[in-house]
């Protein structure tokens, strides 16, 4: 299963939308950096799959409170996700 990593605001670039178009069943999605803006209030821009991960430090830094369906993780868990998945695809 693939780990997809998105670091762009969903309002600003197509990275998240492109990523969602390329996700297969069972793939994991991790939001980092400006990607965490997709983890906040429902936006209508791109519905995030249940079980999406979000880097907590980036959300806290920006004052974003992710939706309940999103799993907040730290760098250690990020690395574990990398170990558990292959390939790893960055969308930027």
């Amino acid at each position, binding site marked *: 299963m693939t780990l997809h990593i998105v670091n762009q605001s969903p309002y600003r670039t197509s990275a998240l939308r492109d990523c969602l178009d390329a996700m297969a069943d069972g793939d994991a999605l991790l939001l980092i950096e400006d990607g965490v803006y997709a983890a906040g209030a429902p936006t209508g821009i791109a519905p995030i799959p249940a079980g999406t991960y979000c880097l907590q430090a980036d959300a806290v830094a920006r004052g974003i409170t992710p939706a309940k369906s999103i799993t907040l993780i730290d760098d250690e868990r990020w*690395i574990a996700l990398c*170990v558990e998945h292959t390939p790893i695809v960055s969308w930027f």
Partner: protein
Amino acid sequence: MIFSLVVYSAPHAGESAATAVRFARALVDQGHRLYRVFFYGDGVHSGSALAAPPQDEQDLLGQWQALYREHGVDLVVCIAAAQRRGVLSQSEAQRLERPAANLAEGFELGGLGQLADATAHSDRIVTFGGSA
């Protein structure tokens, strides 16, 4: 597990370069092997010895160099991308007749073959892309 990282973004252009070095540190702290960090595109600016951010901002250069000193992490700056952008070793500066060199200690210039080599010798490749 053996990781390699690819870094495309210049330090202080956004958050990506800082995320990359933090991730690299976490990897080695957890006992994974970091086979190589390959700096490409604007990422080559990470290897500049001349960056002098204010005291209250992150010293990304120092963090990369600490990974090199403490763990011998292979920090490879793509030579072709670096020439275009003005990141030169002493010998490159002489060969290209430029007035100075700025490649920081701990970094080395290398060809794109080193990226292909990293994919062949790593279990995982993680890319740190640019800011928009």
